[in-house]
């Protein structure tokens, strides 16, 4: 029978011998072969082979598996041993473990903060049921907005979209109901808004809510403000548009109220329930727009393909369509639409779909609300990574340094049969345990860190909430394990390389010559620390320079009051009756707070280039009020004397090419575009108009008197009791405008608040610098401790032979001091070079200077020396008897 030429499949036989108990091998292979032969007679070769496989696999049973192999396959016992030994090692070397755990925990807490931030942002717009099919259409020019007709064009001409909708920021003003006023800002929205997004209405019906003209869906909060606890559905409000800033804080500066008519509430949406990049108080039915256009209250953009600054277009893709198909349709649309290749603005314009889930993290040019742009995350992630790497360096360094101690252990393991893989696993499990312990500590740090981060000034705008949910902890754990592996990988491979014979025979000397890497890593750590320290000092100096900056005008005791549509003359009249008010002027913009308008002027009749000036609409009291010195001529004349007078700054004077201020007075200049002839009434001393954090040169300034443009009153009050004066102003304001509450700010505080962002940066960098130096010093401490421990005997002998304490301390410190000095020699020029890259772009700046460098070096040296000295002095003071008597 054995003559049959077919044999059982070889791989199956191989597999069988791999796991089968040796004592069973003969009978089992015999049985299976007999079976195979039987099957060959009865059925086909294929079936017989298949059957053989089945039989082999069916032998994988506990009784038949070789015991040695079992362990090899499952590893369980060994894994347990790795962790047990790992844990014992951590406990045995408490000091080193503490240094490692602490350093890793510090760095991990920062990384975890960023994980929390990203997790927080990812929760935005996660509630939309069809979210995975929703796309926002953006422009290739990085605009988040698109032309108004786009939504309809996609829906009507292409089959790719199930639904489209467009949101036009428009209504932003006052809603009044029975003398109750609420400010509302929102969008014109189509009924399709609710079929794309999953905003549910608390009251009202989504299918009809936005159908009719002059209907609106309002937020729960607004409904409460207007109607209290009454049912808002069917109630009305009168709306006056004031062009308030929306959707961004700097979108528009307001205008006198324009009544739009009476709106009926058809729905209430509870905004607090949703985390969305779309925030609004009101959605007005898009059907309202035609009648507003007819009444000339809003502009007609219905077919304006070249106006793409405000509307946000959203597309709900059909279930069977892909992003690529949408892009194809959009490309087709843009090439058909923008045929005019001469139009610079539109000739290469493309529409780019952006996934809904991507919107919150990937901020576009004119996006809906303030959030951290991607570059902000990248900046923070880079900082966190640098810190994390520094902490990993510590682990690597201390582990490699202790190689001498562990060489024997590794040797014994190898001699008793451990393969390299097992040693690697041993060391990796140790590092993973360390980093998981660090995770526990890091969560503790995070509880301290997260509130501090939320208190940053920036977060007023970014609104991070940072809740810790279970899924975040899963990510944390994964992160900790990853860090453990990264930190442990080098020591694991380095230490497992040891030749057991050498390691066992002569553990003290066999692994010399590897100090290069450790030194390098330490030096890198200190270079990084020094860089962060000097940068933080520099940014702080820059910040305090800004805070003390002399703008060239006096901002103390000036209260800037937002006019909110109130007539300035009337307000001025009322306020001048208050004794504390010493002077009042008006402006269209608050200088040095980030906004500016331009006006280009030149000498008339010349071929000269127009010079760009910043124009401020103000009145005759402005220069006095801000105590700006007039160099020549007169102050800006009151409006009654004529509209064509201007006063210009010294800088403008130079740019226009006048030799002295007196030459300019009485001269005429020509304004670009309007071609108005303007008479220079006077010249004043330059003051800083732009934001301090600006990369451009100080601009020339022109002042002009146009009362219609006034937005703010600048009220100077006597310095004794500013708050009392404000109270009186408030009382007068109530007389003129009982509806709107007084909106005011102290000018000097306003200017200071412009620098808050810089101070946040100081805090962040300062904190990172603190972490970097703390981690580096921990590493240094570990190394110093280890070295002094290793050399106890040597120190003892030296002392017995007569060495002084100081000599020994110097001997022990020398190596570390060299590292610190090397770090300083690399770090200072590096920091100087990198910091000057951004510093030189600012016009108002401090210099890097020797002081910054010295301060940084001093901090680094002080901390470094204390760390080293703590170990070396202790070692040098030790009684040699103790170290020498025991062998």
């Amino acid at each position, binding site marked *: *029978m*054995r003559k049959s030429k077919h044999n059982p499949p070889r791989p199956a036989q191989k597999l069988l011998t791999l796991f089968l108990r040796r004592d069973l091998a003969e009978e089992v292979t015999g*049985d299976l*072969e*007999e*079976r195979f032969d039987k099957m060959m007679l009865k059925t086909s070769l294929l079936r017989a082979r298949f059957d053989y496989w089945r039989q082999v696999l069916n032998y994988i049973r506990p009784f038949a598996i070789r015991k040695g192999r079992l362990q090899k396959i499952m590893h369980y016992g060994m894994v347990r041993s790795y962790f047990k030994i790992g844990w014992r090692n951590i406990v045995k070397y408490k000091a080193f473990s503490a240094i490692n755990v602490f350093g890793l925990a510090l760095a991990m807490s920062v990384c975890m903060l960023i994980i929390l931030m990203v997790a927080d942002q990812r929760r935005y717009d996660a509630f939309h049921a069809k979210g995975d099919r929703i796309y926002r259409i953006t422009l290739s020019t990085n605009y988040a907005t698109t032309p108004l007709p786009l939504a309809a064009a996609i829906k009507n001409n292409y089959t790719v979209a199930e639904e489209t909708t467009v949101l036009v920021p428009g209504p932003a003003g006052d809603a009044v109901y029975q003398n109750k006023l609420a400010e509302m800002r929102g969008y014109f929205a189509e009924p399709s808004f609710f079929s794309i997004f999953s905003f549910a209405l608390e009251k009202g019906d989504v299918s009809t809510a936005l159908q009719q003209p002059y209907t609106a869906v309002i937020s729960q909060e607004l409904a409460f403000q207007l109607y209290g606890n009454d049912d808002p559905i069917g109630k009305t409000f009168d709306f006056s548009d004031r062009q308030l800033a929306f959707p961004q804080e700097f979108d528009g500066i307001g205008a006198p109220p324009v009544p739009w008519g009476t709106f009926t509430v058809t729905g209430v949406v509870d905004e607090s329930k949703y985390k969305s990049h779309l925030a609004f108080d009101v959605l007005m039915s898009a059907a309202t727009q035609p009648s507003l256009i007819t009444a000339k209250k809003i502009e007609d953009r219905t077919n304006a393909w070249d106006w793409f600054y405000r509307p946000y277009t959203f597309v709900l893709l059909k279930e069977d369509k892909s992003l690529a198909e949408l892009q194809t349709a959009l490309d087709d649309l843009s090439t058909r639409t923008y045929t005019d290749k001469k139009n610079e603005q539109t000739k290469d314009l493309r529409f780019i779909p952006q996934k809904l889930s991507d919107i919150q993290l990937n901020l576009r040019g004119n996006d809906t609300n303030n959030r951290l742009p991607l570059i902000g995350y990248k900046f923070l992630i880079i900082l966190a990574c640098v810190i994390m790497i520094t902490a990993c360096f510590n682990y690597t360094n201390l582990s490699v340094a202790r190689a001498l101690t562990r060489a024997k252990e590794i040797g014994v393991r190898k001699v008793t049969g451990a393969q390299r893989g097992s040693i690697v696993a041993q060391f990796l499990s140790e590092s993973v345990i360390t980093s998981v312990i660090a995770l526990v500590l890091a969560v503790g740090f995070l509880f301290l860190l997260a509130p501090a981060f939320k208190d940053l000034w920036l977060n007023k705008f970014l609104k991070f909430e940072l809740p810790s949910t279970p899924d975040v902890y899963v990510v944390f754990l994964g992160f900790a394990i990853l860090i453990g592996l990264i930190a442990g990988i080098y020591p694991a491979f380095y230490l497992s390389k040891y030749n057991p014979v050498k390691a066992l025979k002569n553990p003290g000397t066999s692994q010399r010559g590897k100090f290069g890497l450790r030194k390098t890593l330490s030096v890198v750590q200190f270079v990084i620390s020094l860089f962060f320290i000097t940068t933080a000092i520099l940014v702080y100096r820059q910040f305090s320079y800004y805070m003390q900056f002399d703008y060239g005008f006096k901002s103390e005791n000036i209260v800037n009051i937002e006019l909110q549509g109130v007539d300035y003359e009337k307000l001025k009249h009322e306020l001048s009756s208050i004794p504390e008010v010493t002077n009042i002027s008006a402006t269209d913009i608050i200088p040095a707070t980030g906004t500016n308008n331009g006006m280009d002027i030149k000498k008339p009749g010349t071929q000269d280039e127009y010079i760009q000036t910043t124009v401020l609409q103000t009145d005759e009291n402005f220069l006095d009020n801000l105590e700006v010195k007039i160099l020549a001529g007169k102050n800006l004349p009151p409006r009654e004397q004529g509209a064509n007078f201007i006063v210009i700054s010294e800088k403008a004077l130079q740019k226009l090419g006048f030799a002295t201020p007196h030459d300019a007075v009485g001269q005429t200049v020509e304004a670009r575009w309007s071609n108005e002839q303007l008479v220079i009434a006077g010249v004043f001393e330059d003051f800083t108009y732009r934001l301090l954090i600006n990369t451009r040169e100080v601009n020339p300034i022109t002042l002009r008197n146009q009362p219609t443009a006034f937005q703010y009153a600048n009220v100077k009050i006597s310095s004794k009791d500013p708050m009392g004066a404000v109270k009186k102003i408030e009382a007068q304001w109530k007389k003129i405008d009982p509806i709107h509450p007084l909106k005011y700010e102290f000018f000097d505080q306003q200017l200071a608040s412009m620098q808050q962002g810089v101070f946040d940066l100081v805090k962040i960098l300062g904190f990172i610098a603190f972490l970097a130096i703390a981690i580096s010093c921990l590493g240094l401490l570990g190394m110093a401790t280890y070295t002094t421990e290793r050399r106890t005997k040597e120190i003892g002998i030296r002392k017995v032979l007569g060495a002084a304490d100081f000599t020994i301390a110097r001997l022990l410190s020398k190596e570390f001091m060299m590292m610190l000095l090397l770090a300083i020699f690399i770090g200072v020029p590096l920091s100087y070079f990198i910091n000057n890259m951004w510093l030189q772009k600012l016009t108002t700046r401090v210099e890097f200077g020797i002081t910054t460098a010295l301060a940084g070096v001093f901090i680094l040296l002080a901390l470094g020396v204390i760390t080293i000295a703590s170990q070396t002095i202790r070692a040098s003071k030790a009684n040699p008897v103790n170290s020498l008597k025991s062998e």
Partner: protein
Amino acid sequence: MIETRLGEFEEVILLLTGILGEEAYSFKIAEEFETQTKRSVSIGAVHSTLNRLEEKGFLTSKVGNATAERGGRRKRIYTITAYGRRALESARDLRMSLYNQFPAFAGKMDFGFSV
């Protein structure tokens, strides 16, 4: 503690071992199982059960002689022990007693002797 009761599969395997006598080795038992019960079984499953039954003391085994079949490899021949016989008897007695108590079958278990 070793479980001494017989499971259904164990009982059948034990019986087949008895039936096959000198030919009772894993492959044959598995083959016989398949032909008699029309149920598919792997040699591994049978072997595992034989191993267990041997541990319980119901079976003993010895390595048989080499034959030309199966590449000259020897077989392990299983023999039922007295203890195994007793386990089968008590299993059968329990079964019979239960069948007799079941009214639908009671009195009909006459093995065809009556008219």
